[in-house]
């Protein structure tokens, strides 16, 4: 297994091609693992405490070895960078056809450094790389950019697919995402702002070069077998039809939704549920990422008769809204109409902005207004005009989205890095502590799901390397109360499946993080595995196809170590920045306020928090007091080189060389508010 690596320095215009050797895959698996290593290497040469919007930051795109080879388990590309909004390690995943076609362009990994003097896009076509002027694209939204580039570059030698930013990225809004093919967003951590800060509007690829497969016959055989398993799986049909929307009902049952800035754990109103979506909205066609048997996405058009509010959006076409689009609008902002939810998904994707952080910023202010903590005058001061800040008022919400994207008013400036930093800045400005109403987890990242009742989930929000997040660790053992899964992962013990006790919750968090890191590094979609990690698509099954494609055959234990190594590298990055145990935390509401409703009413995350976190560090082999990695663990994982860097940076447990205190820079006063 070898892959092409492209290095583009936008400051000098220098373009370099390198080959990633087989040994790189043996150590870092591929995809996100290799991305993490490239990021680590970059910041050995550059200042890790640099401003994430400066030319010193790096934008790395990578796609794993299993993407686009006909295995049928989806294709996911990954962007890795230092996050402008959270200030820590940042990465985000997205599908579409860009990560598929990029594999045939000759480069699986793209590293962009420096800053272009004017807006540019990078065109990669069969190993030939051109940096092109993007003046005509600047100001366009992601869909328009995609359409324009497709038209410009034509269908030869292959169709062109794009990775682009919308207006949010151009304006370097901290929570801006990067959009694949004009629709599928790499939302989290602010990759859009990194691209915007480099004056890079888009990356376009076309390619007709081959991928070397170690054992094509083995791959075909595996693929046949996988198809048969999929045919026998009922859950796959539900997933095909509803995508992640089935989670709405599931969370209504277990009280896992996030309503009105998490003042509730259930959606209100009868309209927003997956049945209504499937029955009322006309699916014109299913659309996939490439190389996926499930096709949970679809193309829709609003015809006007679906609901009263649908009249406003007649003719609007969009893709299937997924759960977090729904959670951030129907949940966090209490929008009660599917047409409006779909519209919310569409505008946030077109502007290219993360709807999790954005909705929590808006719902934070809505709650302050609801509680009369801020007056109409305060609101006018923030927005420069009267603003209703009514729950569920879509016209207003749309205006607020624009405010953030274009940073039109003090609100836009304050909340450009999401709810946490926004609330912090606003508190400072008003001289009042509003942090009680800001919803965030590690790094200040917001997430629109209830977690007080689910200890593993709660812990994930506190420890995930890229800030509070759902795709670094998965809470499925406790949420579905899967005793069988608990037994399989923990030698017959079932405690992990019981969300009411703290036992094995930190352990689940650690083990599933390793597991997910591994799957992310394969370059495939997580959802096939999530359908049933035990019988349907166990991780070992992925190991087989990885061996067929790359020729790297691992035992189960070795694979889990691979996953753990990747997690430890991400952790090391954050340790170097200065993140310690005190940064592994969640917001006040989650920590101390009781869960307001649902089957787990009254549960407080703080009751179990420390215990679960201790257990997590124990399973990780990290130091419980500081949260730092230990040399013993790093040596077990073959990360001696990383350990040396950490020790030199004073970020290794028990190897403190000086009393130099390093802290994450959360500098509130440097935010300029325009007069």
């Amino acid at each position: 297994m070898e892959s092409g690596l492209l290095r583009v320095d936008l400051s000098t215009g220098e373009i370099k091609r390198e080959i990633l050797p087989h040994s790189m895959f043996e150590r870092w698996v591929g995809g996100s693992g290799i991305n993490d290593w490239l990021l680590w290497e970059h910041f050995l040469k550059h200042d890790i405490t640099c401003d994430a919007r400066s030319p010193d930051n790096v934008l790395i795109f990578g796609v794993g070895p299993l993407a686009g080879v006909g295995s049928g388990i989806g294709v996911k590309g990954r962007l890795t960078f230092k996050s402008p909004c959270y200030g820590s390690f940042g990465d985000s995943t997205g599908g579409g056809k860009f990560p598929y076609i990029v594999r045939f362009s000759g480069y699986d990994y793209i590293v962009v450094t420096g800053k272009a003097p004017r807006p540019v896009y990078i065109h990669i076509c069969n190993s030939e790389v051109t940096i092109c002027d993007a003046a005509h694209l600047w100001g366009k939204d992601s869909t328009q950019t995609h359409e324009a580039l497709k038209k410009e570059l034509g269908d030869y030698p292959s169709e062109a697919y794009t990775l682009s930013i919308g207006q949010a990225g151009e304006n370097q809004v901290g929570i801006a995402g990067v959009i694949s093919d004009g629709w599928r967003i790499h939302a989290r951590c602010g990759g859009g702002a990194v691209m915007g800060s480099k004056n890079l509007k888009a990356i376009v690829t076309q390619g007709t070069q081959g991928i070397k497969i170690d054992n094509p016959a083995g791959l075909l055989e595996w693929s046949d077998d996988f198809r048969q398993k999929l045919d026998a799986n009922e859950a796959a049909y539900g997933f095909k039809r509803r995508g992640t929307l089935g989670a709405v009902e599931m969370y209504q049952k277990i009280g896992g939704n996030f309503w009105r800035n998490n003042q509730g754990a259930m959606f209100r109103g009868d309209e927003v549920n997956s049945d209504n979506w499937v029955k009322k909205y006309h699916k014109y066609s299913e659309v996939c990422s490439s190389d996926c048997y499930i096709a949970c996405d679809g193309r829709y058009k609003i015809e006007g008769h679906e609901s009263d509010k649908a009249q406003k959006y007649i003719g609007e076409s969009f893709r299937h809204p997924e759960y977090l689009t729904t959670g951030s609008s129907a949940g966090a902002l209490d929008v009660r109409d599917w047409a409006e939810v779909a519209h919310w998904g569409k505008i946030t994707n077109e502007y290219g902005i993360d709807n999790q952080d954005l909705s929590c910023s808006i719902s934070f202010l809505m709650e302050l207004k609801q509680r009369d903590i801020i007056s109409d005058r305060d609101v006018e001061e923030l927005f420069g005009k009267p603003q209703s800040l009514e729950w569920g008022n879509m016209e207003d919400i749309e205006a607020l989205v624009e405010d953030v994207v274009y940073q039109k008013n003090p609100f836009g400036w304050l909340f450009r890095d999401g709810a946490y930093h926004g609330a912090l800045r606003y508190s400072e400005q008003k001289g009042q502590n509003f942090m009680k109403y800001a919803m965030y987890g590690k790094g200040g990242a917001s997430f629109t799901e209830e977690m007080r009742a689910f200890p593993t989930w709660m812990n994930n929000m506190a420890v995930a390397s890229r800030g509070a997040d759902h795709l670094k660790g998965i809470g499925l053992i406790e949420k579905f109360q899967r005793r069988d899964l608990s037994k399989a992962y923990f030698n017959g013990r079932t405690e992990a499946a019981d969300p009411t006790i703290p036992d094995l919750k930190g352990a689940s968090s650690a083990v599933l993080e390793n597991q997910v890191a591994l799957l992310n590094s394969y370059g495939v979609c997580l959802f096939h595995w999530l359908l049933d990690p035990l019988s349907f698509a166990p991780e070992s099954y992925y190991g087989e196809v990885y061996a067929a494609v790359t020729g790297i055959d691992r035992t189960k234990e070795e694979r889990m170590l691979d996953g753990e190594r990747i997690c430890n590298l991400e952790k090391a990055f954050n340790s170097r920045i200065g993140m310690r145990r005190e940064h592994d935390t969640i917001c006040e509401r989650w920590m101390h306020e009781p869960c307001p409703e649902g089957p787990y009413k009254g549960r407080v995350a703080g009751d179990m928090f420390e215990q679960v976190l201790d257990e997590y560090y124990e399973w990780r082999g990290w130091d419980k007091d500081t949260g730092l990695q230990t040399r013993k663990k790093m040596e077990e994982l073959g990360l001696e080189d990383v350990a040396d860097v950490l020790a030199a940076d004073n970020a290794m447990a028990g190897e403190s060389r000086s009393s130099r205190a390093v802290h994450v820079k959360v500098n509130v006063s440097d935010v300029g508010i325009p007069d």
Partner: protein
Amino acid sequence: MQEVRQKELVNGEVWYQPGDEVPNVPTKLFALQNLCTDCKMCEIACSLIHSPDGMLNPVWTRIKIDHAPQVSRVSKDGFGFMPALCHHCANPPPCAEVCPTDAFYYDPKTQAAVIDQDKCIQCMECVPGCPFDTVFVAPTGELLKCDLCGGDPVCVKACSTRPEMLNKGKQYSRLPVLFYEDKAAFGKILRQKPEARDEVGLMQAMLSKGKVSSAA
């Protein structure tokens, strides 16, 4: 007056002459429009078994997903997709008719019209010669057309909306995009879902520019 042609084939078979009784072709590759999800599984699977030297490269595919013909290619909302596939036209196929070296022959087992690469001089006459644009050119200049994989087309097996998915999901019934079926069975399938037509056999469906069928 039509010239009566008798083409010698590599394997000793002959082109059938006008008026000859064409032996019953048991099965044929069909595609339904509008249901294709553009997942490219067929392209990848086809290129995987046809790419040389263990490489995987979609330019070696013999089936290609295109926008459905009834929807404009340049439309922003290109809703429908359709695999462009060889129809293994009846005797003699247009691609073979324009071939100056008579490099095409019928595979006696599957009745697929295939190219004898030894005879082919890569003049590319067959590319525009095919009315369905399904003869492709590999980077090496080699002409590629569907050979039905010797009777077990891998694209049909790989199609993410394949027949096996039809009945098992209780609430989720729909038709696959690709079929390798005999004509009678395919006719029956079409009667179940008349809006999904075979591209070749039922051109009139293409003309009805109305609603695209729902895949849900």
